[in-house]
Structures are given as C-alpha cells and as structure tokens.
C-alpha cells in the first residue's frame, strides 16, 4: 500500500501496463521495496484484483456515511418535534409532540438517507483527494484501457524504473 506521499509533484517515472495480471504482480513486488514510497497505481476501472494487490482494507468512507446518516436521522426527528413544540398543531384530535413519533419516522428516515448520501459523496471526494487542481493528467490512456504505476521523484535511470521494466511494463517514461 502506498504510504504517505513524500514528493507532491507530478515529476517522476511512470510505468504503463497493458494487462491486469502483470500490473497486479508488479504492485506486489513494488510494495515490498522501500524506494517506492508514495507510489500511485492507476487503473481504468475498479478491478478488485488491484484492490487486493494494493492490500487495501475497509475504506474510511464508511465513517462519513455513518455520521451523515445519524446526523440526518437526528435532524429529521428534531425538525418535526421542534416545530411541534413551537406551535402544537392538533389535527383530527391527534396529540402533537412525542406521541406523534410514528408519523415523524418518515421525516426521520428520509433525512437519514439524504444526509447519509451527501456525506458519502463528500467522503469519497475528501478521501480520494479530489478536486485537486494542482495535479495534472499523467497519461491520457489511464482512463481508457491502461494500468500504471507512478513513482514520484524517481528518474528514468533509477532502480525504480529498472524494476518497473522487469515487472513487464510496456512503457516506462519520465513525467
């Protein structure tokens, strides 16, 4: 798994791969080395093989979802109850306030979903570090059909570039 990025620029060496299995075995080799700190793996889509090779566990996005959903639930019930206490509205002889909780479940439920969904999106953006206008596109094929391992701060004649070639990268170049 990529550790904390030490070099924040888009200058380094990128190894482009054509095949999923090649890139996965390359990732496993790269992770064992110390000189690949801050490396990034690129994939055209969310292959689980890559996730496994990178050794990712459960994503922290789940905490965003949980906190968002709980906040939403509380706000939904709070909205209905607070307005009720502000001006009790007796309709059809129905008692306002706490005895009306069953009717407020709908509001609480909808707000749970709404806040949970918004928090999930925020979580994905925050954890994925996007939007980040400082980063640029390293290779336009990475959103098409190519995989890549990018090593920031490395040079073409460095051992990192050599390893990427050994692992079967179809192309290794400086960015």
């Amino acid at each position, binding site marked *: 798994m990529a550790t904390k990025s030490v070099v924040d620029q888009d200058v380094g060496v990128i190894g482009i791969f054509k*095949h999923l299995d090649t890139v996965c075995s390359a990732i496993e080799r790269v992770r064992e080395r110390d000189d690949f700190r801050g490396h990034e793996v690129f994939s055209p889509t969310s292959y689980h093989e890559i996730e496994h090779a990178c050794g990712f566990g459960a994503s922290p996005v789940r905490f965003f979802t949980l906190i968002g959903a709980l906040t939403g639930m509380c706000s939904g019930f709070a909205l209905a109850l607070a307005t009720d206490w*502000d001006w009790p509205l007796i309709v059809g002889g129905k008692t306002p306030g706490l005895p009306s909780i069953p009717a407020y479940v709908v509001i609480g439920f909808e707000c749970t979903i709404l806040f949970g969904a918004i928090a999930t999106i925020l979580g994905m953006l925050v954890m994925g570090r996007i939007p980040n206008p400082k980063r640029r596109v390293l290779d336009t094929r*990475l959103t*098409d059909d190519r995989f890549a391992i990018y090593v920031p701060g490395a040079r073409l004649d460095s051992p990192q570039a050599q390893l990427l070639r050994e692992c079967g990268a179809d192309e290794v170049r400086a960015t």
Partner: protein
Amino acid sequence: MTTPMWTKTISDVNEEILVNLEKPHPAFYAVFGLALSLFLAGIVFVALHTTFGLGLWQFAPPLYWAVDITNFVFWVGIGHAGTLISAILFLFRAKWRNTVNRSAEAMTIFAVMCAAIFPLIHMGRMWLGAYWAMPFPNTNNLWVNFRSPLVWDVFAISTYFTVSLLFWYMGLVPDLASIRDRTKGIKRLVYGFMSFGWRGTAKQWWHYEAGYGFLAALATPLVLSVHSVVSWDFAMSLQPGWHTTIFPPYFVAGAILSGCAMVYNLLIPVRFMFRLEKFILPEHLDACLKLTLLTSTIVFYAYGVEFFVAWYSGNPYEWAIFEKRAIGPYSFYFWTMVFCNCIFPLAWWSKKVRASIPISFVICLLVNVGMWFERYNIIVSSLVEDFLPSAWGHFEPGLWEIVITLGSFGMFFVFFFIFCKFFPIISLSEIKLIMPKPLSGKKAHGGSHHGH
C-alpha cells in the same frame, strides 16, 4: 444468466461508446425535434393555465386531483427503475445492470423532474406552491403539518431526487474524466471541471467503490419507500378505493413495472441511434424484460387482492367503487389497464417474444399506457364520488390535460436526448468490469471477480 458473448474488448469501450459525442444519427434530430415541439406546446399551455387559473381544467369539486396528480404519480413511478437498477441490482450483483444503469439513472432524474412540476402546476400559483411545500413557518410562525402524508411526500420526493442525482453523478465522474482525456481545448476544460479532476488512482477507486456501495445501500430502502410514501397520499385518506393497506407494495411494484418498461423503450432507440448493439447485448435486454414480467405478475396479483379485499371486507362503499371501475363508466380505463399491465406482458413467458425487439417494444409501450391508466383509474374513479352524493359527477380529460401531459413527455425526452448527446450513455468504467479482463495469458491470476 449465461456468460454473454463479447466481441469487444475494454480497449474498444471508450472509442465506440463515446461516438454519441460526435455527429448523431439523423433519427436523433427527428425524435428530438418532435420532443421539443411537444415540450414547447406544454410550456405554452402551462403558461396560459397559470395566467388564467385552474378553471381552465375540466375538473370540479370533489375531483381536485385529476390528470395532474395522475401524471405526478406516473412520472415518479417511471423514475423508480433507475434507482432499482443502479442500487438494488448492484447489491444483487446482477451484471446486466452495468450496460443499462447510466441511461436508467438519467431517466430517473428527468422523470422525477417531470413529476415534481405537476403538484406545482396543480396548485395554480406555483411560486406559492413551492413555498408552502417547504418546511418553513408562515408569517404567523405556523409550520407545516409533519403528520400529513403530503409533507412526507415533499421530503420523500426531494430526497429521492437528490440521492438519485448524486448516485448518477458519482457514476459519471470517472467517465467524464475519460472524455476529458480524449478531448482538447475548451471541451477538455469543461469535462475536466465536471470530473472533479478524477485521476483514476487505485486509492480513488477504492474509496469510490466503498462510497458507491454505501450509496446503493442507502438508496435501496429509499426506492421502496418513495412510492410507498406517494401511495400514502391516497391510503392515509378515508376515501373508498384509496384507504387500503395494500397500496404501498402495490404502488412500488407498479412503479418498477412502468420504469422497467420505460428503460426498454429508451434503450432500443438509443441502442439503434448510437450503434451500441455490441455493448447492449440481447442477454441484457432479455434480463430487463424478465424483470418487467416479474413486476407485471406482482401487479396482476395486487389487482386481484385489491378486488378480493373490497368484496371480502363487506364494506358496501368500497365495493361500489370497484364495481364502478370494472363495469361502470370507467370500465374502458380499467380494462385497458388490466390488459396492458397484466395480460399482454404474459407473452414474455415465451423466449421467442422476448427475443423479438419490435414485439417487446410495443408491449413495453402498452405497459406504460396501462400504468398511466392505472393511476388515472385510482385517482379519478375514487375521487369523483366522495361523501356528498350531490357533488358526484363524471370526468373525462380534455384538451388542457392532454396537451400538458404530452408536454411532460416532451420535456422528458428533450432532457433525455440532451443527455445522450453530451454524456456517456453507457457507464464506461462499469461496462469494462463485466467484459473479459485484459490478461496477459502468461499465467492464471488468483483472486475472484466480484462484479460491480
């Protein structure tokens, strides 16, 4: 489902699906022109109707909810298939969804937009209607009644719209990045901005996948709840024909039926116009029809149970409404509904009929007609005779109702075709997941594939 026969690889995906951003098929302009003219006619009629008032519509008390609320329920129903396909089928790992989810989600967004307009049109002064519907206190500091199903409905529909929009846009982000990487100049800037600068790193995909799963888990109860809440607009009243506990599941099944039929009706022209036959395979269309058939049989069952309960309850008022629906002045609407929603779809038990695109297309159109009639039938035949026999009457839709309804179809198709022109119609990143993986063939790679 058997393994589909892919003739394409993931390297063909971006190249061949994004042809829709180039010059479209001439049929595109013809359909778009037709939709635009209907939309404009609808705008003119709504403008006149807003200027001169609700009196232009044919209805009279007690029938306040006629074609406008019929359209509202119809469009919300259409919207259901999108989230069902994107969320529930995602959790079930149904792979065929990956080819159709994008257009189905777009359909949801536009259908809910069409739906949201109708309560506003219905309230006459729509600027006030929008204000009253929101949970704000009025000048006397009086709040909306949170025990009213109409307020629940506002919450349900607005949550549904927002969550569907987020879900749809989240799926679009990596695809917009794909377009960004294929274009230059101002287009590249616009798509780059819209894609939030997505880079496609493994870490981003990891969080994206997790987020997508959670959104699906949140949207799943939402799909089932939204039409339940819509049905409570009716079921919470004491009106005979409305006041039944079967309404929530019955409405949800009907919504999914009409939504799936609409997905098929949209996919066929889109598949033809943008030459997507190699990506939307016959197996995927077949799966969509099977889902439509399943929901059709649930709806069939619900119609039967509704009648049985009306008779078995021994409530003469309830039974009178059902009698009126089946053999009274609304029998045309009732039997059209039964044949279109329950009888014609039975043809799909035959594999040959499912494989025939023209026949299935026509049946799907009929299902949509039938579902519109179902809502009309429920709303009008119940409401036209309420508790004051002196106010009873008969209702048939007139010019205003028909033009505004067609206008909403125009609006829906205008938005849908604009979407088809500027966005990827098939989710690029998700279809790559169900296609054969790009393996070197040197050695078998471990690790199972979970689908997306």
